[in-house]
């Protein structure tokens, strides 16, 4: 073997070793990216993301987004002209599509079982507060009071025709995102993809093997940080928190979770409630209902529906239903898990 030959081999070996060490990361990343696709957009007055892995990931993500947009515009939106809810609220009576009707029926069940802690008939009260559209001061008490008190009792269903009475106006803000997650589940299951994580404004649908780690948003920082994680499998997770939508007026924080009985934002020491369920609409509806009821009564309601709940208080203590405790890891040292 001559000298030139050995130098050539050595250089080849160096190049090979360097390529393996330095190239492994990017190559793996390329393979991974080819098989997964992320899409995001603004629908249902919030931020939506779909992360899909598997064959037809791009097509599935696009179908998921189109489905959410359609549900918003044709069914759940209070403001989109021509949607089921818009037509029902404007006419007082309307023949609803199946999907809107089923959503309404499921939501009304939670309204009843929560004794009105969730009330999908308080559309007028939500409009008066106008927190979603950037209100900066609270409404007058005299204007609020007529709009409170079990408005859901004045929603009547006769076949597919629904009618409203006594000032009830539909607002699906507390259930629509979860109902949309249920609809997304059908698309994802049919598509045959391996894994899907869909978030509609923090209401989440999880699908696929290998389990998931879900962060519970920090009450101080919202979705930009988390205080604990839940290790979970396929299913749905929703959270209602005071930090999501709010304004400050004269030193008082007014957030978007209204007590339907008083007409004012709930002040019960809770910062957020997270519900884990095998139903999207239940996870969404119960996160609001359990928040309004407080941690003792809320825990009972969640268990009645076979769901798991995590309550985070303003003084940084985390309470849970029994089963989920072992799946929960506190990641922010300033929070403690109650016994």
């Amino acid at each position, binding site marked *: 073997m001559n000298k030139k030959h050995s130098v050539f081999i*050595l250089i080849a070996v160096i190049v090979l070793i360097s390529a393996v060490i*330095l190239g492994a990361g990017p190559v793996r990343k390329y393979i991974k990216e080819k098989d997964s696709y992320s899409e995001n957009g603004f629908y249902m007055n919030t*931020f939506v993301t779909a992360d899909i892995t598997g064959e037809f990931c791009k097509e599935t993500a696009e179908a998921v987004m189109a489905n959410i947009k359609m549900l918003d515009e044709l069914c759940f939106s209070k403001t989109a002209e021509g949607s089921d809810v818009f037509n029902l609220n404007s006419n007082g009576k309307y023949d609803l599509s199946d999907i809107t009707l089923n959503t309404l029926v499921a939501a009304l069940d939670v309204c009843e079982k929560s004794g009105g802690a969730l009330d999908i008939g308080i559309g007028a009260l939500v409009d008066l507060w106008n927190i979603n559209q950037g209100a900066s001061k609270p409404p007058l008490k005299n204007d609020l009071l007529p709009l409170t008190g079990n408005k859901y009792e004045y929603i009547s269903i006769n076949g597919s025709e629904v009618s409203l009475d006594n000032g009830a106006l539909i607002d699906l803000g507390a259930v629509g995102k979860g109902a949309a997650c249920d609809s997304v589940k059908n698309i994802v299951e049919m598509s045959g993809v391996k894994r899907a*994580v869909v978030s509609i404004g923090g209401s989440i649908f999880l699908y696929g093997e290998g389990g998931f780690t879900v*962060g*519970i948003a920090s009450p101080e920082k*919202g979705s930009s940080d988390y205080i604990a994680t839940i290790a979970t499998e396929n299913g749905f997770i929703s959270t209602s928190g005071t930090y999501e939508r709010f304004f400050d007026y004269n030193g008082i924080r007014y957030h978007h979770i209204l007590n339907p009985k008083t007409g004012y934002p709930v002040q019960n020491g809770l910062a957020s409630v997270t519900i884990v369920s095998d139903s999207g609409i239940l996870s969404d509806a119960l996160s609001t209902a359990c928040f309004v009821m407080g941690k003792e009564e809320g825990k009972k309601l969640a268990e009645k529906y076979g769901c798991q709940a995590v309550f985070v208080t303003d003084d940084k203590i985390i309470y849970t239903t029994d089963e989920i405790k072992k799946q929960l890891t506190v990641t922010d040292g300033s929070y403690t898990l109650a016994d």
Partner: protein
Amino acid sequence: MKTRLLRKTDLIMIFVIIFAGVAAILVNRYSGDSLIAQITVDGNVIETIDLNSVENTRTVITKTSPKTEITVEKGAIYFCKADCDNQLCVKSGKLTSGGATAVCLPAKVVITVTEAQSVDVVTY
């Protein structure tokens, strides 16, 4: 003819191989996992940044209504200013770990951060 087991050039080559190997390992170890931030406006990516490799702090201004200003620094990214009333995006604070998201709904500006080891998603 006398043949030596190792010539001078061979020794140099062995030294170079060992040096290259050690250097590659050190580069991999100390560069840390990448922490990727992405800024999107109404779904369109306007910038993707590896936060761990940021050297000089800078500001990204979005041409949106309302206008938002985003500070990019080593290991963190955040909304520092927004021309709106509620300032929810500014109150989100610094994004420093994977899975984090900050959103300005009125301007449709979103910052997301991802890293190899982190949560799949955050519920809020």
